[in-house]
Protein backbone atom coordinates (compact mmCIF):
# COMPACT_ATOMS: atom_id res chain seq x y z
CA UNK A 1 0.00 0.00 0.00
CA UNK A 2 1.44 3.35 -0.97
CA UNK A 3 0.84 5.94 1.66
CA UNK A 4 1.47 9.59 2.06
CA UNK A 5 3.75 8.65 4.92
CA UNK A 6 5.97 6.94 2.43
CA UNK A 7 5.69 9.38 -0.41
CA UNK A 8 5.99 12.61 1.55
CA UNK A 9 9.39 13.81 2.72
CA UNK A 10 10.04 12.68 6.26
CA UNK A 11 10.97 15.79 8.19
CA UNK A 12 10.28 14.51 11.68
CA UNK A 13 8.54 16.29 14.52
CA UNK A 14 8.35 19.99 15.28
CA UNK A 15 6.56 21.76 18.13
CA UNK A 16 6.54 25.53 17.83
CA UNK A 17 5.48 27.76 20.69
CA UNK A 18 3.13 25.16 22.11
CA UNK A 19 1.15 26.12 25.19
CA UNK A 20 -1.30 23.83 26.92
CA UNK A 21 -3.39 24.68 29.97
CA UNK A 22 -5.87 22.76 32.06
CA UNK A 23 -8.74 24.09 34.15
CA UNK A 24 -7.77 24.15 37.81
CA UNK A 25 -10.62 25.43 39.91
CA UNK A 26 -11.30 28.99 38.85
CA UNK A 27 -7.87 29.41 37.28
CA UNK A 28 -5.91 27.42 34.71
CA UNK A 29 -2.82 25.30 35.22
CA UNK A 30 -0.13 25.63 32.57
CA UNK A 31 1.12 22.19 31.55
CA UNK A 32 3.20 23.32 28.56
CA UNK A 33 4.54 26.85 28.41
CA UNK A 34 5.63 28.03 24.97
CA UNK A 35 7.44 24.80 24.17
CA UNK A 36 9.49 24.60 21.00
CA UNK A 37 11.14 21.35 19.96
CA UNK A 38 12.41 19.91 16.71
CA UNK A 39 13.43 16.27 16.29
CA UNK A 40 14.93 15.20 12.98
CA UNK A 41 14.57 11.75 11.40
CA UNK A 42 17.08 9.35 12.95
CA UNK A 43 17.45 11.46 16.08
CA UNK A 44 16.75 10.01 19.53
CA UNK A 45 15.74 12.73 21.97
CA UNK A 46 14.94 12.20 25.60
CA UNK A 47 12.83 14.55 27.68
CA UNK A 48 13.53 14.12 31.35
CA UNK A 49 11.95 15.74 34.31
CA UNK A 50 10.13 15.14 37.56
CA UNK A 51 6.54 14.05 37.83
CA UNK A 52 4.15 16.86 36.97
CA UNK A 53 6.72 18.72 34.91
CA UNK A 54 4.63 18.35 31.73
CA UNK A 55 6.34 15.40 30.06
CA UNK A 56 3.13 13.45 29.52
CA UNK A 57 1.36 16.56 28.24
CA UNK A 58 4.19 17.07 25.75
CA UNK A 59 3.73 13.53 24.51
CA UNK A 60 -0.06 13.86 24.33
CA UNK A 61 0.20 16.99 22.22
CA UNK A 62 2.91 15.54 19.99
CA UNK A 63 0.78 12.42 19.51
CA UNK A 64 -2.11 14.63 18.35
CA UNK A 65 -4.22 13.22 21.17
CA UNK A 66 -4.65 16.66 22.66
CA UNK A 67 -4.96 20.07 20.99
CA UNK A 68 -2.74 22.79 22.45
CA UNK A 69 -4.15 26.19 23.36
CA UNK A 70 -1.53 27.84 21.20
CA UNK A 71 1.29 26.86 18.90
CA UNK A 72 1.86 24.37 16.12
CA UNK A 73 2.50 20.63 16.03
CA UNK A 74 4.03 19.56 12.74
CA UNK A 75 4.42 15.92 11.74
CA UNK A 76 6.45 15.64 8.53
CA UNK A 77 5.44 19.23 7.93
CA UNK A 78 1.71 18.54 8.37
CA UNK A 79 0.11 20.97 10.81
CA UNK A 80 -1.93 18.74 13.13
CA UNK A 81 -3.82 21.78 14.40
CA UNK A 82 -5.34 22.30 10.96
CA UNK A 83 -6.75 18.78 10.87
CA UNK A 84 -10.15 17.55 11.99
CA UNK A 85 -10.57 14.58 14.31
CA UNK A 86 -10.81 12.03 11.48
CA UNK A 87 -7.75 13.46 9.78
CA UNK A 88 -5.74 13.42 12.98
CA UNK A 89 -6.75 9.80 13.50
CA UNK A 90 -5.47 9.08 9.99
CA UNK A 91 -2.29 10.99 10.78
CA UNK A 92 -1.64 8.82 13.82
CA UNK A 93 -2.35 5.72 11.74
CA UNK A 94 0.04 6.68 8.98
CA UNK A 95 2.87 8.66 10.53
CA UNK A 96 3.04 8.16 14.29
CA UNK A 97 4.15 5.27 16.43
CA UNK A 98 3.41 5.37 20.13
CA UNK A 99 5.14 3.22 22.72
CA UNK A 100 2.92 3.37 25.78
CA UNK A 101 4.13 3.51 29.38
CA UNK A 102 2.31 0.33 30.26
CA UNK A 103 2.46 -2.07 27.37
CA UNK A 104 -1.27 -1.53 26.75
CA UNK A 105 -1.55 -4.72 24.73
CA UNK A 106 -4.97 -6.14 23.90
CA UNK A 107 -5.59 -9.12 26.17
CA UNK A 108 -7.35 -11.19 23.54
CA UNK A 109 -4.59 -10.99 20.94
CA UNK A 110 -1.33 -12.89 20.62
CA UNK A 111 1.92 -10.97 20.20
CA UNK A 112 1.81 -11.20 16.42
CA UNK A 113 -1.88 -10.30 16.35
CA UNK A 114 -1.10 -7.08 18.29
CA UNK A 115 0.63 -5.98 15.09
CA UNK A 116 -1.80 -7.53 12.64
CA UNK A 117 -4.71 -5.63 14.15
CA UNK A 118 -3.06 -2.46 12.86
CA UNK A 119 -3.22 -3.87 9.34
CA UNK A 120 -6.95 -4.40 9.89
CA UNK A 121 -7.26 -0.84 11.20
CA UNK A 122 -5.49 0.38 8.05
CA UNK A 123 -7.98 -1.52 5.89
CA UNK A 124 -5.57 -4.23 4.77
CA UNK A 125 -5.74 -7.99 5.10
CA UNK A 126 -4.06 -9.03 8.36
CA UNK A 127 -3.09 -12.42 6.94
CA UNK A 128 -1.10 -10.71 4.18
CA UNK A 129 0.99 -8.84 6.73
CA UNK A 130 1.80 -11.80 8.96
CA UNK A 131 5.33 -12.42 7.71
CA UNK A 132 6.25 -8.76 8.13
CA UNK A 133 4.80 -8.71 11.63
CA UNK A 134 6.79 -11.81 12.53
CA UNK A 135 9.99 -10.27 11.15
CA UNK A 136 9.37 -7.09 13.10
CA UNK A 137 8.82 -9.00 16.33
CA UNK A 138 11.96 -11.03 15.68
CA UNK A 139 13.90 -7.80 15.12
CA UNK A 140 12.99 -6.61 18.63
CA UNK A 141 14.04 -9.94 20.10
CA UNK A 142 10.76 -11.80 20.24
CA UNK A 143 10.62 -14.84 18.04
CA UNK A 144 9.40 -18.41 17.88
CA UNK A 145 6.59 -19.55 20.08
CA UNK A 146 6.56 -16.29 22.01
CA UNK A 147 4.99 -14.57 19.02
CA UNK A 148 1.92 -16.73 19.52
CA UNK A 149 1.56 -15.96 23.21
CA UNK A 150 -0.97 -13.60 24.70
CA UNK A 151 0.15 -10.70 26.93
CA UNK A 152 -0.43 -12.53 30.21
CA UNK A 153 1.94 -15.26 28.99
CA UNK A 154 4.80 -12.80 28.39
CA UNK A 155 7.20 -11.09 30.81
CA UNK A 156 7.15 -7.32 31.32
CA UNK A 157 10.19 -6.87 29.09
CA UNK A 158 8.68 -9.04 26.37
CA UNK A 159 5.42 -7.11 26.49
CA UNK A 160 7.36 -3.87 26.08
CA UNK A 161 9.14 -5.34 23.04
CA UNK A 162 5.75 -6.17 21.50
CA UNK A 163 4.69 -2.63 22.33
CA UNK A 164 7.70 -1.27 20.43
CA UNK A 165 7.18 -3.58 17.46
CA UNK A 166 3.54 -2.50 17.29
CA UNK A 167 4.59 1.16 17.25
CA UNK A 168 6.93 0.44 14.34
CA UNK A 169 4.46 -1.61 12.30
CA UNK A 170 3.01 1.39 10.44
CA UNK A 171 6.51 2.54 9.38
CA UNK A 172 6.10 5.78 11.36
CA UNK A 173 8.08 8.94 10.81
CA UNK A 174 7.79 9.88 14.46
CA UNK A 175 8.15 7.51 17.39
CA UNK A 176 6.82 8.74 20.72
CA UNK A 177 7.87 6.76 23.77
CA UNK A 178 6.23 7.20 27.16
CA UNK A 179 8.28 6.05 30.18
CA UNK A 180 9.15 2.70 28.57
CA UNK A 181 11.14 1.39 31.52
CA UNK A 182 8.80 2.27 34.36
CA UNK A 183 7.69 -1.34 34.85
CA UNK A 184 11.11 -2.90 34.24
CA UNK A 185 14.22 -3.51 36.31
CA UNK A 186 17.39 -1.60 35.44
CA UNK A 187 18.92 -4.29 33.23
CA UNK A 188 15.79 -4.79 31.16
CA UNK A 189 15.18 -1.06 31.06
CA UNK A 190 18.67 -0.52 29.63
CA UNK A 191 18.00 -3.19 27.00
CA UNK A 192 14.79 -1.49 25.94
CA UNK A 193 16.42 1.95 25.66
CA UNK A 194 19.27 0.39 23.68
CA UNK A 195 16.73 -1.21 21.38
CA UNK A 196 14.97 2.13 20.87
CA UNK A 197 18.30 3.75 19.98
CA UNK A 198 18.99 1.05 17.37
CA UNK A 199 15.50 1.37 15.96
CA UNK A 200 15.82 5.13 15.67
CA UNK A 201 18.94 4.67 13.54
CA UNK A 202 17.75 1.73 11.48
CA UNK A 203 14.21 2.98 10.86
CA UNK A 204 15.10 6.65 10.63
CA UNK A 205 12.40 7.70 13.05
CA UNK A 206 12.32 10.98 14.90
CA UNK A 207 12.13 9.50 18.39
CA UNK A 208 11.06 11.34 21.52
CA UNK A 209 11.21 9.45 24.80
CA UNK A 210 9.93 10.96 28.01
CA UNK A 211 11.38 9.48 31.16
CA UNK A 212 12.14 10.25 34.75
CA UNK A 213 14.92 7.61 34.85
CA UNK A 214 18.19 9.49 34.22
CA UNK A 215 20.30 6.34 34.52
CA UNK A 216 19.17 5.17 31.09
CA UNK A 217 20.02 8.19 28.98
CA UNK A 218 23.46 7.11 27.78
CA UNK A 219 22.22 5.92 24.40
CA UNK A 220 20.18 8.98 23.44
CA UNK A 221 21.41 11.75 21.15
CA UNK A 222 20.01 14.62 23.15
CA UNK A 223 18.54 15.08 26.59
CA UNK A 224 16.15 17.93 27.31
CA UNK A 225 15.04 18.89 30.78
CA UNK A 226 11.48 19.80 31.51
CA UNK A 227 10.42 21.88 34.50
CA UNK A 228 7.04 23.45 35.11
CA UNK A 229 6.03 23.02 31.48
CA UNK A 230 9.14 24.56 30.00
CA UNK A 231 11.88 22.82 28.08
CA UNK A 232 15.50 23.57 28.76
Amino acid sequence: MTTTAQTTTRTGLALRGVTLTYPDGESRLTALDDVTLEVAPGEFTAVAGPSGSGKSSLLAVAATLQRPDRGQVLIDGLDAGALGDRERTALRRERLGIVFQQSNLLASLTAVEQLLVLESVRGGRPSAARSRAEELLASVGLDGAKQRRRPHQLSGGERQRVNIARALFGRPSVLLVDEPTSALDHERGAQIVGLLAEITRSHGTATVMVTHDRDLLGRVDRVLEMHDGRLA
Partner: protein
Amino acid sequence: MDSAAAAARVDGRTAHLHRKVPVFVALSDIRFAKGRFALMGAVVTLITMLVVFLYGLTGGLAAAASSTVAGLPADRIVFGAPAGAAATVSFGNSVVSAGQQAAFAAAPGVGAAHPLGVSLTRLTASDAAVSVSVLGSPAALLPPLRQGAAPADGQVAVGADTAAEYHLAVGGQVRVGPSTLTVSGVTEQRSYSHAPTVWTTLATWEQLSGQSRPTVLALTGSPSGGAALDAAQGTTTVALADALAGINGFSAEQGSLQLIQGFLFAVSALVVGAFFTVWTVQRRPDIAVLKAVGASSGYLVRDALAQAAAVLLGGALLGGAAGGTGGLLAASAVPFDVGPATVAVPVAAMVLLGLAGAALAVRRITSVDPLAALGASR
Protein backbone atom coordinates in the same frame (compact mmCIF):
# COMPACT_ATOMS: atom_id res chain seq x y z
CA MET B 1 3.41 22.01 2.52
CA ASP B 2 -0.09 23.45 2.61
CA SER B 3 -1.72 21.93 5.68
CA ALA B 4 -5.25 21.85 4.33
CA ALA B 5 -4.16 20.06 1.16
CA ALA B 6 -2.08 17.66 3.18
CA ALA B 7 -5.01 17.02 5.48
CA ALA B 8 -7.20 16.22 2.52
CA ARG B 9 -4.58 13.78 1.31
CA VAL B 10 -4.36 12.06 4.66
CA ASP B 11 -8.11 11.78 4.96
CA GLY B 12 -8.72 10.91 1.31
CA ARG B 13 -6.12 8.19 1.32
CA THR B 14 -7.65 6.33 4.23
CA ALA B 15 -11.35 6.98 3.76
CA HIS B 16 -11.83 3.98 1.49
CA LEU B 17 -10.11 1.72 3.95
CA HIS B 18 -12.93 1.76 6.46
CA ARG B 19 -15.98 0.85 4.48
CA LYS B 20 -15.82 -2.90 4.95
CA VAL B 21 -16.85 -4.61 8.13
CA PRO B 22 -13.83 -5.45 10.29
CA VAL B 23 -13.95 -8.64 12.34
CA PHE B 24 -10.35 -9.05 13.47
CA VAL B 25 -10.76 -7.86 17.05
CA ALA B 26 -14.39 -9.02 17.19
CA LEU B 27 -13.56 -12.64 16.47
CA SER B 28 -10.42 -12.59 18.61
CA ASP B 29 -12.45 -11.34 21.57
CA ILE B 30 -15.03 -14.08 21.08
CA ARG B 31 -12.30 -16.73 20.96
CA PHE B 32 -10.60 -15.24 24.01
CA ALA B 33 -13.70 -14.74 26.16
CA LYS B 34 -15.47 -17.93 25.12
CA GLY B 35 -17.33 -18.35 28.40
CA ARG B 36 -18.91 -14.91 28.42
CA PHE B 37 -19.94 -15.03 24.78
CA ALA B 38 -21.20 -18.61 25.10
CA LEU B 39 -23.37 -17.50 28.02
CA MET B 40 -24.74 -14.59 26.01
CA GLY B 41 -25.29 -16.84 22.99
CA ALA B 42 -27.14 -19.33 25.19
CA VAL B 43 -29.44 -16.58 26.46
CA VAL B 44 -30.18 -15.55 22.87
CA THR B 45 -30.77 -19.20 21.97
CA LEU B 46 -33.26 -19.73 24.78
CA ILE B 47 -35.17 -16.52 24.11
CA THR B 48 -35.31 -17.28 20.38
CA MET B 49 -36.55 -20.79 21.10
CA LEU B 50 -39.28 -19.39 23.33
CA VAL B 51 -40.28 -16.80 20.74
CA VAL B 52 -40.42 -19.45 17.99
CA PHE B 53 -42.68 -21.58 20.19
CA LEU B 54 -44.92 -18.61 20.90
CA TYR B 55 -44.93 -17.48 17.28
CA GLY B 56 -45.91 -20.95 16.08
CA LEU B 57 -48.52 -21.27 18.80
CA THR B 58 -49.95 -17.85 17.96
CA GLY B 59 -50.21 -18.84 14.31
CA GLY B 60 -51.69 -22.22 15.19
CA LEU B 61 -54.27 -20.73 17.52
CA ALA B 62 -55.12 -18.09 14.94
CA ALA B 63 -55.72 -20.78 12.36
CA ALA B 64 -57.82 -22.81 14.80
CA ALA B 65 -59.93 -19.76 15.57
CA SER B 66 -60.28 -18.26 12.15
CA SER B 67 -59.25 -20.46 9.22
CA THR B 68 -62.88 -20.93 8.18
CA VAL B 69 -63.47 -17.19 7.88
CA ALA B 70 -59.97 -16.35 6.63
CA GLY B 71 -60.32 -18.98 3.90
CA LEU B 72 -63.65 -17.79 2.55
CA PRO B 73 -63.50 -16.89 -1.15
CA ALA B 74 -64.84 -13.42 -0.36
CA ASP B 75 -63.53 -9.87 -0.18
CA ARG B 76 -65.79 -8.32 2.43
CA ILE B 77 -68.14 -9.46 5.17
CA VAL B 78 -71.42 -7.69 5.97
CA PHE B 79 -72.55 -7.82 9.60
CA GLY B 80 -76.13 -7.03 10.56
CA ALA B 81 -77.94 -6.88 13.88
CA PRO B 82 -81.22 -7.96 15.42
CA ALA B 83 -83.98 -5.38 15.22
CA GLY B 84 -83.28 -2.36 17.37
CA ALA B 85 -79.56 -3.08 17.81
CA ALA B 86 -76.63 -1.46 16.05
CA ALA B 87 -74.53 -3.66 13.79
CA THR B 88 -71.07 -4.46 15.07
CA VAL B 89 -68.29 -6.69 13.84
CA SER B 90 -69.46 -9.80 15.71
CA PHE B 91 -70.44 -13.18 14.34
CA GLY B 92 -72.16 -13.87 17.66
CA ASN B 93 -74.51 -10.90 17.40
CA SER B 94 -74.96 -10.61 13.65
CA VAL B 95 -78.03 -11.52 11.66
CA VAL B 96 -78.90 -10.35 8.15
CA SER B 97 -82.21 -10.22 6.33
CA ALA B 98 -83.24 -11.17 2.83
CA GLY B 99 -83.74 -7.46 2.11
CA GLN B 100 -80.21 -6.64 3.11
CA GLN B 101 -78.92 -9.49 0.98
CA ALA B 102 -80.88 -8.20 -2.02
CA ALA B 103 -79.62 -4.64 -1.46
CA PHE B 104 -75.98 -5.70 -1.34
CA ALA B 105 -76.36 -8.11 -4.27
CA ALA B 106 -77.75 -5.24 -6.35
CA ALA B 107 -75.09 -2.72 -5.27
CA PRO B 108 -72.62 -1.61 -7.96
CA GLY B 109 -69.20 -3.18 -7.47
CA VAL B 110 -70.53 -6.33 -5.81
CA GLY B 111 -70.04 -9.58 -7.72
CA ALA B 112 -72.00 -11.78 -5.40
CA ALA B 113 -73.55 -11.50 -1.93
CA HIS B 114 -73.67 -14.98 -0.43
CA PRO B 115 -75.61 -15.56 2.78
CA LEU B 116 -73.64 -17.42 5.41
CA GLY B 117 -75.00 -19.02 8.56
CA VAL B 118 -72.58 -19.63 11.43
CA SER B 119 -73.31 -21.58 14.60
CA LEU B 120 -71.75 -24.02 17.03
CA THR B 121 -73.20 -27.41 17.82
CA ARG B 122 -72.23 -31.02 18.49
CA LEU B 123 -71.29 -33.71 16.01
CA THR B 124 -71.87 -37.30 17.07
CA ALA B 125 -70.31 -40.11 15.11
CA SER B 126 -69.81 -43.73 16.17
CA ASP B 127 -69.40 -43.43 19.91
CA ALA B 128 -67.69 -40.04 19.97
CA ALA B 129 -68.97 -36.48 20.13
CA VAL B 130 -67.16 -33.28 19.30
CA SER B 131 -68.02 -29.60 19.22
CA VAL B 132 -68.18 -28.37 15.66
CA SER B 133 -68.92 -25.14 13.90
CA VAL B 134 -71.64 -25.49 11.29
CA LEU B 135 -71.63 -23.16 8.32
CA GLY B 136 -74.66 -22.96 6.10
CA SER B 137 -73.71 -21.57 2.75
CA PRO B 138 -73.98 -21.96 -0.98
CA ALA B 139 -71.43 -24.31 -2.56
CA ALA B 140 -69.43 -21.29 -3.78
CA LEU B 141 -68.14 -20.62 -0.26
CA LEU B 142 -66.94 -24.17 0.44
CA PRO B 143 -63.25 -24.93 0.78
CA PRO B 144 -61.76 -27.16 -1.92
CA LEU B 145 -63.31 -30.64 -1.90
CA ARG B 146 -61.03 -33.65 -1.55
CA GLN B 147 -63.75 -36.23 -1.98
CA GLY B 148 -67.43 -36.31 -2.91
CA ALA B 149 -69.58 -33.32 -3.64
CA ALA B 150 -70.90 -30.15 -2.10
CA PRO B 151 -73.81 -30.83 0.28
CA ALA B 152 -77.43 -30.67 -0.80
CA ASP B 153 -80.23 -30.23 1.73
CA GLY B 154 -79.93 -32.93 4.39
CA GLN B 155 -76.28 -33.45 3.67
CA VAL B 156 -73.03 -32.26 5.21
CA ALA B 157 -69.41 -31.90 4.06
CA VAL B 158 -66.77 -32.45 6.73
CA GLY B 159 -63.11 -31.52 6.98
CA ALA B 160 -60.45 -34.08 6.14
CA ASP B 161 -59.05 -34.28 9.69
CA THR B 162 -62.53 -34.57 11.18
CA ALA B 163 -63.41 -37.33 8.71
CA ALA B 164 -60.25 -39.22 9.57
CA GLU B 165 -60.61 -38.81 13.33
CA TYR B 166 -64.26 -39.84 13.48
CA HIS B 167 -64.13 -42.39 10.64
CA LEU B 168 -66.57 -40.49 8.44
CA ALA B 169 -66.87 -41.45 4.79
CA VAL B 170 -68.83 -40.08 1.87
CA GLY B 171 -72.32 -41.62 1.97
CA GLY B 172 -72.15 -42.30 5.69
CA GLN B 173 -74.50 -40.89 8.31
CA VAL B 174 -73.56 -38.44 11.03
CA ARG B 175 -75.56 -36.64 13.63
CA VAL B 176 -75.10 -32.85 13.67
CA GLY B 177 -77.01 -31.18 16.48
CA PRO B 178 -80.54 -32.57 16.36
CA SER B 179 -80.35 -33.71 12.72
CA THR B 180 -78.96 -36.82 11.09
CA LEU B 181 -77.19 -35.87 7.87
CA THR B 182 -75.51 -37.76 5.08
CA VAL B 183 -71.86 -37.01 4.42
CA SER B 184 -71.68 -35.68 0.86
CA GLY B 185 -68.01 -34.81 0.68
CA VAL B 186 -64.74 -34.22 2.46
CA THR B 187 -63.17 -30.72 2.28
CA GLU B 188 -59.87 -29.28 3.33
CA GLN B 189 -59.84 -28.87 7.10
CA ARG B 190 -61.08 -25.57 8.45
CA SER B 191 -62.03 -24.45 11.91
CA TYR B 192 -63.93 -21.61 13.52
CA SER B 193 -63.60 -20.56 17.15
CA HIS B 194 -61.36 -23.61 17.80
CA ALA B 195 -64.09 -25.99 16.59
CA PRO B 196 -63.69 -27.94 13.33
CA THR B 197 -66.08 -26.73 10.66
CA VAL B 198 -68.70 -28.77 8.82
CA TRP B 199 -70.57 -27.36 5.86
CA THR B 200 -74.18 -27.69 4.83
CA THR B 201 -76.81 -25.77 2.93
CA LEU B 202 -78.39 -22.67 4.39
CA ALA B 203 -81.78 -24.41 4.65
CA THR B 204 -80.33 -27.36 6.56
CA TRP B 205 -78.29 -24.97 8.72
CA GLU B 206 -81.48 -23.05 9.62
CA GLN B 207 -83.12 -26.32 10.55
CA LEU B 208 -80.39 -27.61 12.80
CA SER B 209 -79.43 -24.25 14.34
CA GLY B 210 -82.96 -23.06 14.93
CA GLN B 211 -82.13 -19.79 13.15
CA SER B 212 -84.38 -18.31 10.53
CA ARG B 213 -81.95 -15.89 8.97
CA PRO B 214 -78.27 -16.12 7.97
CA THR B 215 -75.54 -14.64 10.15
CA VAL B 216 -73.57 -12.54 7.66
CA LEU B 217 -73.17 -11.85 3.97
CA ALA B 218 -69.96 -12.75 2.15
CA LEU B 219 -69.32 -10.34 -0.69
CA THR B 220 -67.10 -10.67 -3.69
CA GLY B 221 -66.01 -7.25 -4.89
CA SER B 222 -66.67 -4.08 -2.93
CA PRO B 223 -69.83 -2.01 -3.03
CA SER B 224 -69.35 1.55 -4.22
CA GLY B 225 -70.73 3.96 -1.68
CA GLY B 226 -70.34 1.28 0.94
CA ALA B 227 -70.73 3.61 3.91
CA ALA B 228 -74.02 5.00 2.60
CA LEU B 229 -75.23 1.49 1.88
CA ASP B 230 -74.32 0.39 5.42
CA ALA B 231 -76.11 3.40 6.84
CA ALA B 232 -79.20 2.70 4.78
CA GLN B 233 -79.23 -1.01 5.58
CA GLY B 234 -78.14 -0.80 9.22
CA THR B 235 -75.12 -2.98 8.53
CA THR B 236 -71.37 -2.85 9.05
CA THR B 237 -69.17 -4.02 6.18
CA VAL B 238 -65.50 -4.81 6.70
CA ALA B 239 -62.69 -6.42 4.74
CA LEU B 240 -62.33 -10.16 5.19
CA ALA B 241 -59.16 -9.79 7.28
CA ASP B 242 -60.91 -7.35 9.61
CA ALA B 243 -63.85 -9.70 9.99
CA LEU B 244 -61.64 -12.06 12.03
CA ALA B 245 -62.06 -9.65 14.94
CA GLY B 246 -65.73 -10.63 14.94
CA ILE B 247 -64.90 -14.16 16.09
CA ASN B 248 -65.49 -14.46 19.82
CA GLY B 249 -62.23 -14.14 21.76
CA PHE B 250 -60.05 -13.97 18.65
CA SER B 251 -58.66 -10.47 19.21
CA ALA B 252 -58.10 -10.99 22.93
CA GLU B 253 -56.35 -14.31 22.37
CA GLN B 254 -54.11 -13.02 19.60
CA GLY B 255 -53.46 -9.77 21.42
CA SER B 256 -52.32 -11.60 24.55
CA LEU B 257 -49.94 -13.85 22.67
CA GLN B 258 -48.55 -11.01 20.59
CA LEU B 259 -48.04 -8.95 23.73
CA ILE B 260 -45.96 -11.77 25.24
CA GLN B 261 -43.95 -11.95 22.02
CA GLY B 262 -43.39 -8.21 22.15
CA PHE B 263 -42.19 -8.44 25.74
CA LEU B 264 -39.81 -11.23 24.81
CA PHE B 265 -38.38 -9.20 21.95
CA ALA B 266 -37.99 -6.19 24.24
CA VAL B 267 -36.34 -8.33 26.92
CA SER B 268 -34.01 -9.74 24.29
CA ALA B 269 -32.98 -6.30 23.05
CA LEU B 270 -32.45 -5.14 26.64
CA VAL B 271 -30.40 -8.21 27.61
CA VAL B 272 -28.20 -7.93 24.52
CA GLY B 273 -27.87 -4.18 25.05
CA ALA B 274 -26.94 -4.66 28.70
CA PHE B 275 -24.35 -7.29 27.86
CA PHE B 276 -22.67 -5.14 25.25
CA THR B 277 -22.86 -2.08 27.50
CA VAL B 278 -20.89 -3.91 30.19
CA TRP B 279 -18.58 -5.40 27.56
CA THR B 280 -17.91 -1.98 26.03
CA VAL B 281 -17.18 -0.47 29.45
CA GLN B 282 -14.74 -3.30 30.16
CA ARG B 283 -13.07 -2.72 26.79
CA ARG B 284 -12.59 1.04 27.22
CA PRO B 285 -8.81 0.74 27.78
CA ASP B 286 -8.44 -1.40 24.66
CA ILE B 287 -10.63 0.98 22.69
CA ALA B 288 -8.53 3.94 23.85
CA VAL B 289 -5.35 2.17 22.69
CA LEU B 290 -6.85 1.29 19.32
CA LYS B 291 -7.99 4.87 18.84
CA ALA B 292 -4.57 6.16 19.85
CA VAL B 293 -2.90 4.00 17.22
CA GLY B 294 -5.27 5.21 14.52
CA ALA B 295 -8.50 3.22 14.63
CA SER B 296 -11.49 5.39 13.82
CA SER B 297 -14.68 5.31 15.87
CA GLY B 298 -16.46 3.98 12.78
CA TYR B 299 -14.04 1.07 12.53
CA LEU B 300 -14.49 0.22 16.20
CA VAL B 301 -18.28 0.52 16.11
CA ARG B 302 -18.48 -1.70 13.03
CA ASP B 303 -16.15 -4.19 14.69
CA ALA B 304 -18.32 -4.24 17.83
CA LEU B 305 -21.53 -4.60 15.80
CA ALA B 306 -19.97 -7.45 13.82
CA GLN B 307 -19.22 -9.10 17.15
CA ALA B 308 -22.83 -8.61 18.27
CA ALA B 309 -24.10 -9.91 14.93
CA ALA B 310 -21.97 -13.04 15.25
CA VAL B 311 -23.31 -13.76 18.74
CA LEU B 312 -26.90 -12.98 17.75
CA LEU B 313 -26.81 -14.98 14.52
CA GLY B 314 -25.25 -17.98 16.22
CA GLY B 315 -27.65 -17.88 19.15
CA ALA B 316 -30.76 -17.08 17.13
CA LEU B 317 -30.12 -19.73 14.48
CA LEU B 318 -29.55 -22.34 17.14
CA GLY B 319 -32.67 -21.23 19.01
CA GLY B 320 -34.66 -21.15 15.77
CA ALA B 321 -33.60 -24.68 14.90
CA ALA B 322 -34.42 -25.94 18.40
CA GLY B 323 -37.75 -24.10 18.50
CA GLY B 324 -38.74 -25.27 15.02
CA THR B 325 -37.87 -28.88 15.83
CA GLY B 326 -39.74 -28.71 19.12
CA GLY B 327 -42.73 -27.17 17.37
CA LEU B 328 -42.79 -29.92 14.76
CA LEU B 329 -42.81 -32.53 17.51
CA ALA B 330 -45.51 -30.69 19.43
CA ALA B 331 -47.71 -29.98 16.40
CA SER B 332 -49.65 -33.21 16.84
CA ALA B 333 -50.69 -32.22 20.36
CA VAL B 334 -51.07 -28.44 20.23
CA PRO B 335 -52.19 -26.01 17.48
CA PHE B 336 -48.67 -25.13 16.28
CA ASP B 337 -48.30 -23.43 12.91
CA VAL B 338 -45.39 -25.13 11.15
CA GLY B 339 -43.76 -23.24 8.29
CA PRO B 340 -40.60 -21.41 7.25
CA ALA B 341 -41.96 -18.10 8.55
CA THR B 342 -42.53 -19.64 12.00
CA VAL B 343 -38.76 -19.82 12.42
CA ALA B 344 -37.52 -17.15 10.02
CA VAL B 345 -39.58 -14.24 11.38
CA PRO B 346 -38.62 -14.66 15.07
CA VAL B 347 -34.96 -15.32 14.18
CA ALA B 348 -34.82 -12.21 11.98
CA ALA B 349 -36.61 -10.13 14.62
CA MET B 350 -34.26 -11.36 17.35
CA VAL B 351 -31.19 -10.49 15.30
CA LEU B 352 -32.47 -7.07 14.27
CA LEU B 353 -33.73 -6.06 17.71
CA GLY B 354 -30.59 -7.45 19.34
CA LEU B 355 -28.48 -5.41 16.95
CA ALA B 356 -30.54 -2.35 17.83
CA GLY B 357 -29.82 -2.98 21.51
CA ALA B 358 -26.15 -3.56 20.77
CA ALA B 359 -25.98 -0.40 18.65
CA LEU B 360 -27.25 1.66 21.58
CA ALA B 361 -24.60 0.03 23.78
CA VAL B 362 -21.60 0.32 21.49
CA ARG B 363 -22.25 3.97 20.68
CA ARG B 364 -20.27 4.55 23.88
CA ILE B 365 -17.21 3.71 21.84
CA THR B 366 -17.40 7.10 20.19
CA SER B 367 -16.99 8.83 23.57
CA VAL B 368 -13.79 6.97 24.55
CA ASP B 369 -10.90 9.43 24.61
CA PRO B 370 -7.71 7.97 23.10
CA LEU B 371 -5.78 10.17 25.50
CA ALA B 372 -6.68 7.60 28.18
CA ALA B 373 -4.20 5.24 26.49
CA LEU B 374 -1.41 7.45 27.79
CA GLY B 375 -2.65 7.14 31.37
CA ALA B 376 -0.22 5.84 33.91
CA SER B 377 -2.54 3.09 35.05
CA ARG B 378 -4.93 0.79 33.27
